[in-house]
């Protein structure tokens, strides 16, 4: 139903088109008002002040950023609901709810969420939010707006998926025959195309094809049943053993009075 009312947005990143100019990196810093973190952006890493990077891997330029999963692990693990997935796709964070348990950092299959480790009192989780306000206003993300080659393209997720598949079909042999993000952990809003194996670019190819939150929900949803059955069972055992004690005591007393009368 949601998919009909709100179109899911996404990004398509094509490594074969990336020239490593760093426009996305700079635009992201600008939009999020982040300080400079590295003289050479190609050597930078994701951090509390860097939400996207362009790195050189296996002779390609490849971006790393939040994948904005369809069923995000971080949203599922957050005990206070500080991380939320909006209908258009962006996964964003509300610092005022956060208690700083860092389960999101631990659980993210892509190692994306970063933490303000050096803030002693009000550390925040930091990551890309797919330019939530821009997207809500009908604009493209900052990174896609400035990309001069179209390596990062913003659009509707299903259209981008179709386009990615079309690019593979149109140029047989140029790409690895896989659109990364269509099925990984149940699908992500960010899709990747590459001409070299994704693993050599630092993208894990051993991830489950189903959403990770199912792994814990399968157990969690059974809890109410376990609790009710357990509660009844223990109350029952308590009652039976208590009754047995009472009967034993009564028998003993009856026995002793019998003896007394004899």
């Amino acid at each position: 139903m949601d998919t009909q009312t709100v179109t899911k947005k996404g990004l398509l990143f094509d490594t074969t088109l990336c020239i490593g100019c760093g426009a996305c990196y700079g635009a992201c810093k600008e939009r999020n008002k982040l300080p400079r973190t590295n003289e050479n952006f190609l050597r930078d890493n994701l951090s509390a002040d860097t939400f996207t990077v362009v790195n050189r891997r296996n002779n390609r330029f490849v971006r790393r950023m939040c994948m904005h999963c369809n069923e995000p692990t971080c949203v599922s693990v957050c005990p206070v609901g500080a991380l939320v997935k909006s209908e258009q796709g962006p996964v964003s964070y509300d610092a005022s709810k956060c208690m700083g348990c860092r389960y999101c950092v631990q659980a993210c299959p892509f190692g994306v969420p970063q933490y303000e480790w050096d803030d002693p009192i009000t550390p925040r989780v930091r990551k890309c939010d797919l330019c939530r306000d821009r997207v809500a206003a009908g604009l493209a993300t900052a990174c896609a707006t400035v990309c001069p080659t179209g390596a990062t393209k913003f659009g509707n997720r299903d259209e981008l998926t179709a386009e990615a598949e079309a690019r593979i079909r149109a140029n047989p042999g140029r790409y690895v025959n896989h659109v990364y993000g269509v099925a990984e952990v149940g699908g992500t809003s960010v899709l990747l195309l590459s001409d070299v194996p994704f693993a050599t670019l630092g993208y894990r190819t051993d991830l489950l094809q189903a959403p990770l939150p199912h792994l814990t929900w399968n157990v969690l949803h059974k809890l109410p049943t376990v609790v009710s059955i357990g509660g009844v069972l223990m109350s029952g055992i308590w009652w039976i053993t208590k009754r047995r004690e009472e009967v034993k005591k009564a028998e003993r007393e009856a026995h002793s009075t019998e003896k007394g009368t004899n």
Partner: protein
Amino acid sequence: MAKISLRFPKITFWRVVLLMILSAGFYATVLRFTKGLGGTTNLSAQFPWGIWIGFDVLCGVALAAGGFSISAVVYIFHIEKYRPIVRPAILTAFLGYSLACVGLMFDLGRPYNIWHPLIMWNPHSVMFEVGWCVTLYTTVLMLEFSPLVLEKLPWQRPYKIVKSITIPLVILGVLLSTMHQSSLGTLYLIVPHRLHPLWYSPLLPVFFFISAIALGCAMTIFESYLSLRAFRKHLDFHLLTKLGAVGAVTLLVYLVIRVMDMQSRGVLSLAFQPTYEGRMFLAEMLLGVIAPIILLFIPRIRNNQFGLFASALMIVLGFVMNRINVAITGMDQSSGVHYFPSWTELAITASIVTAGFIMFGLAVKYLDVFPPEDMKEIAQGKRAELPALAAFRSPLWSATTLAFVLVVIVLGGTAALSYDGIRRRLPVVALSEGSGSVDVSRGLAELKMPGPIKIKMGKTSPGQCVFSHARHVDQKNPNCSTCHSGLFRMLPTTADIAPDRKMTNCGTCHDGVKAVSVRKEDRCDACHAKS
């Protein structure tokens, strides 16, 4: 009730040690809350949970296992023989939970928001359930423990109220704590991509639960031996032996399920490979599972005081190893860093444990944790020394000697295996950047540079200045970040670039050294159109 004396306490070796640990912990606490987690711990985005979660929380919470096992046995199964150990077991559980909560206060980035899960719900989060369980069970334990304090008070009403709700409290406590033990395992179900397959299993909650029961038996034996020397009157040794047998059977079930699970996932062979994880796994299983099972299944050892004590100790140590392996060892390979706790993390952990021992000691001194008449006899020196120590006086070729030799072999073997494992820890390998230059021909073919940008004209401007991307950018190897990283905005239209008198924009490069200076007035026409 003992009188609280105001005399200066005697300086003994152990008091000095405790004081030193607590001082280090205090200093570390100050650092933690002034410099943040980054400045005081070895945690990172690659390794967000360290020893405070792995030991303080996972193991602190497990101390409660003795509490729920024994109170269930006494109150629900009405096996009254075990009643004398209910109070110390509840006390340990209460302390364990309190200390886990204290540990969390250090670990949480925003500890003042610790109550948030109570009002901001996310039932899909295991951490949400853990948060609720910790809160509720700490409350239940406090209520279960409260009679010890309340009975000392002159008013009997609250005492009677708490006593009257004992059974529902115990049932609630058993449910909450068993749920909680297993959900600590469930926490790790969502990281199949991070946790090493030797420890990751869909059955993690089951393993955490079963091992907690075995630990409950072991902790009770362990506590009885360390502090219940008065108990020989009230609690015959036979009971502890039985508890040991129950623990051994539980561990055997645990071992069988774990091996079968690994077999079905096809990872059993990983255990015997000469890797860090393989060795640590073998050490954990040898010390914490296989050795105590064997020891406890030998009647001569089980019925021997030292043998029983040593086996219980192994179960406890093995349990701690398991939790640390899940939280730390198993994460090593996937994280890309080698985490080892910093001195602050260790000092705070040691302080928390020390505080626990001190509080246990104070409770034993001022409250009736153990039967008061026995305590009096201990004070008068009428009671025997620790059975664990007394056991050393038994004849040379006895069950004690046998147990001792076996314990030394197991401990030595475990240490050797762990050392061998750490030695085999693989170096962190960075992903290859590749050699030569990146082929960007396809991208360059698609390259669309932004058009010319008119710079806003000042009143004294000699003529319109137009910025051309094409002239400024290296067409073979464009680098946008040279200028678009703090210097020039990129997102809004760049129409409003002001004249650069302070040389902070164009002047950064047009300084007369790297490029024509914006100050050189005779070369105005280099950028400004002649009007």
